[in-house]
């Protein structure tokens, strides 16, 4: 079999269990594909070919000995470079962590390894997950496999592009304001941000602690459900993770939507949204209706404040979270021999990129004496209102349907000098982080320039099973899951 790299994780699992392919063949096929296309996509910051092959052979040996194997045995996976893997470079695509190798692994890494996944490499991103195009990486630009003139979205652009380009079937990303869902939409793959507290953040380098979540990027909903199940659950190392039962999401994947009530928040279908994006999403709702869903318009009145609220809270937390990169204990330190303050200044000036500096300055200002109440305090109150909007809506609806991004993938360089324009690309994803609710983006067609359009399904807290079910029913009754970029 020479096209294993085209398969989804659950298909690979099946073949390995039936001994139709060896794990080594899977990994080899994957690396052959990477060697062919990575030059054009540039999704990865590190690749672990030899190690991955070694691991593969070890699994094959166990399989040949008839030993019991874990659920995702032999499935290749890519990790966004913001998640710590012991002794492996974890750069956050920043010069300041260019040579940083953590002495510990994130909880999700332990979990996927225990599930049998083989980590093939770490993916590019916007520096410290700050951005929507992966152009803020200190190391390289990642190209959208659908069109190399466009960005893959961000900040988990490397993970999304790698999955779309069939360099890997599944990947982990992180989502603070849309960083999994928006690149998933722009690259035509599935991306899910879990409920806040569903997945441990231990080992995820923090951007905004009250918003960050790790989640899966996959080519189909089944893989998304599989991977989510593996990484979910309470972790004693993360006090904000929640002890709430983790269901077997696969059991909820049924191909119809009978009795499901869906809301269309009108604030998500306003001006600024591309015509084709709106059309594709509306067409998708028709399909859902045909599958038995009841669909009705609704309102989330505080939506217009989401971006402002988000940029106050996220930057405030970031300014504090990123204070530790000071050149003292680890990471980059300016080569110049200076006094203490000089070392701090020079190290951070040389180590951070522009967008990161912009957000640190904004966040520092937001928390300053005399401004705190008007900015951070007020933002927290608006955040509560936004959450309450969703609580009200979810009294009536099982889930809400919106576009993931107002546009399809934009051109490289198009928005990089206009931060406010860039911030608007997260306008539909940000609220879910503020409210702590789960959201999934799935492909729903091709829009302008033949680029993928993403549909977002937002659900109740800890009700990932329902949004997965809706996503699955839609996916199984349309052909979009089969569409692939020609790279």
């Amino acid at each position, binding site marked *: 079999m020479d096209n294993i790299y085209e398969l989804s994780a659950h298909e690979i699992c099946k073949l390995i269990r039936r001994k139709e392919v060896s794990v080594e063949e899977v990994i080899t096929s994957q690396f052959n594909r990477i060697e062919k296309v990575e030059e054009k996509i540039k999704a990865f910051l590190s690749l672990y070919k030899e190690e991955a092959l070694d691991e593969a052979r070890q699994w094959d040996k166990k399989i040949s000995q008839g030993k019991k194997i874990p659920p995702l045995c032999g499935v290749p996976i890519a990790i966004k470079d913001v998640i710590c893997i012991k002794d492996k470079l974890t750069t956050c695509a920043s010069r300041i962590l260019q040579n940083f190798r*953590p002495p*510990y692994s994130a909880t999700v890494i332990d979990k996927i390894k225990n599930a049998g996944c083989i980590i093939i490499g770490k993916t590019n991103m916007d520096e410290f997950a700050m951005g929507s195009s992966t152009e803020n990486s200190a190391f390289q630009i990642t190209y959208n496999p659908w069109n190399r003139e466009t960005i893959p979205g961000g900040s988990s652009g490397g993970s999304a592009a790698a999955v779309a380009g069939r360099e890997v079937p599944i990947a982990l990303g992180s989502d603070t304001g849309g960083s999994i869902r928006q690149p998933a939409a722009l690259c035509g793959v599935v991306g899910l941000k879990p409920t806040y507290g569903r997945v441990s953040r231990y080992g995820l380098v923090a951007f905004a602690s009250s918003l960050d979540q790790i989640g899966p990027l996959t080519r189909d909903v089944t893989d998304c459900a599989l991977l989510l199940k593996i990484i979910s659950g309470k972790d004693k190392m993360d*006090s904000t993770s929640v002890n709430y039962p983790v269901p077997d999401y696969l059991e909820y994947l049924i191909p119809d939507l009978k009795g499901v009530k869906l809301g269309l928040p009108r604030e998500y279908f306003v001006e600024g949204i591309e015509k084709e994006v709106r059309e594709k999403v509306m067409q998708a709702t028709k399909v859902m209706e045909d599958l038995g869903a009841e669909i009705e318009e609704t309102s989330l009145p505080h939506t217009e404040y989401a971006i402002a609220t988000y940029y106050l809270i996220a930057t405030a937390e970031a300014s504090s979270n990123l204070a530790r990169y000071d050149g*003292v*204990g680890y990471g980059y330190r300016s080569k110049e021999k200076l006094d203490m303050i000089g070392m*701090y200044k020079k190290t951070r000036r040389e180590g951070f990129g522009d967008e990161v500096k912009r957000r640190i300055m904004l966040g520092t200002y937001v*928390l*300053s004496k005399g401004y705190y109440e008007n900015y951070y305090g007020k933002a927290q109150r608006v955040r509560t209102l936004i959450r309450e909007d969703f609580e009200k809506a979810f009294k009536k609806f099982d889930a809400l349907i919106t576009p993931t991004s107002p546009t399809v993938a934009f051109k490289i360089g198009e928005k990089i000098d206009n931060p406010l324009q860039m911030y608007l690309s997260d306008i539909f994803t940000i609220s879910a982080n503020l409210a702590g609710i789960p959201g999934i983006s799935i492909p729903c067609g091709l829009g302008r320039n033949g680029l993928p359009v993403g549909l977002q399904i937002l659900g109740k807290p800890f009700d990932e099973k329902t949004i997965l079910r809706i996503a699955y029913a839609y996916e199984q009754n349309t052909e979009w899951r089969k569409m692939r970029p020609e790279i």
Partner: protein
Amino acid sequence: MKYHINIGLEVHVELLTQSKLFCGCSTKFGAPPNTHTCPVCLGLPGVLPVINKKAVEYTLITALALNSQINKNCRFARKNYYYPDLPKNYQISQYNEPLAKGGWIQIKVNGVTKKIGIERIHLEEDAGKLIHGTEVQNLQDKDWSFVDYNRAGIPLMEIVSRPELASPDEAYEYLVTLRKILRYLRVSDCNMEEGSLRCDANISISSEKGKMGVKTELKNMNSFKELREGLWEEVRRQSELLDRGEKVVQETRLWDSRAKKTYLMRGKEEAHDYRYFPEPDLPPLSIDDNWIEKLSASLPELPQQRFERFLKQYRLPEYDATVLTDSRDLADYFEECVKLFPKPKLVSNWIMGDFMRLLKQEKLASIKISPSGIADLLTEVEKGTLSIPMAKEVMEEMFRTGKGVTQIIEEKGMKQISDEESLEKMAQEVLRENPKAVKDFQKGKYQAVKFLVGQLMRKTKGKANPQLANRVIEKKLKEYK
């Protein structure tokens, strides 16, 4: 003194938990640099804090003992500032939602008791320690500094008093009383030399009672004595300013114990903006009533209560009660002894005398002599088996070797001679050997008796019961012809 003084103290104590506040690292003092560290207390990228329940418990116990209101929904906050001993460049502390608010401590200065209000009690993490190249011997890199993170993350409890201390002496007494309470609660060893107790002060003076003057903050007092000295010096400095018609400026000053002066550290304008905000990595701490109830029920008797009980129950003089209740261990020890030998004043005399002298710096928990040993010893004294000097000698031996009273008496052949018959025989010999003294006695010189008793004691190597020796000599003298 024509000015009224207002002093408030901010006391930090390291809690006696086994592990740090947010990770499992040891809190033990004195380990080689950076050996008690992990990704969490080093503030590595991606780590998260997990609260140590024991540290919360110790803070709650303190709050209960200091009559404070426990905030059942308290929260941690980040205090942001840059310093190399602070791994994350923010300290996880508490801001406007501390674990407890209010409360009071009763102090006694010059015979007058006074309640000093507590403002708040909160929990936070300690920072590491900077070691400058210039302070280390035989080091090439004199112009470098080094960081030891062993201390980073050790739980610190901060207790802030209201500015109700009216003199440096009251401040001193407050700190002594607070330390005694914290040691009774066994939440901190409060050792100022090892830094497990630190104290900063706010001080202001005013010519009008009830009106607060401009305050300065005073830091760097490294002992109880320095606290008092530093505050008196600051009172003097502020008084001089006001006397000259000048104003006190709000600022932070450092005490220099060598020069016995305070120096400007930073002015009001240079004060940090700590940009506090709620710690997003820790959910609000909710403390349920059951927990509080359980802790209140297990609260030990506090020093003041115990002192009063000792006066009443054992009818001890105030001085004895004060000394014996100075530490919980000593008070426990005393009570154990009294249980076995129910003559409190006698026990008190022995404990406060030779026992305390022998104890010196040793910890009560690790000494070899047990309360039952003390009781045995006193029983022998009472029976007349041991004279006081002999008993002192035995006690010293018990301290050193941990042997029992009987064993020591036997080994040393120390039994006091209380057998009248054998003493009489020896007295007879003494009289025969000292005819001059006998004659003196017969001439009416009563002094001679004393001399002869002394001779008898010498003959018995001090083992004779002194009263008996006296009686026997007198009796034999009368019979002597």
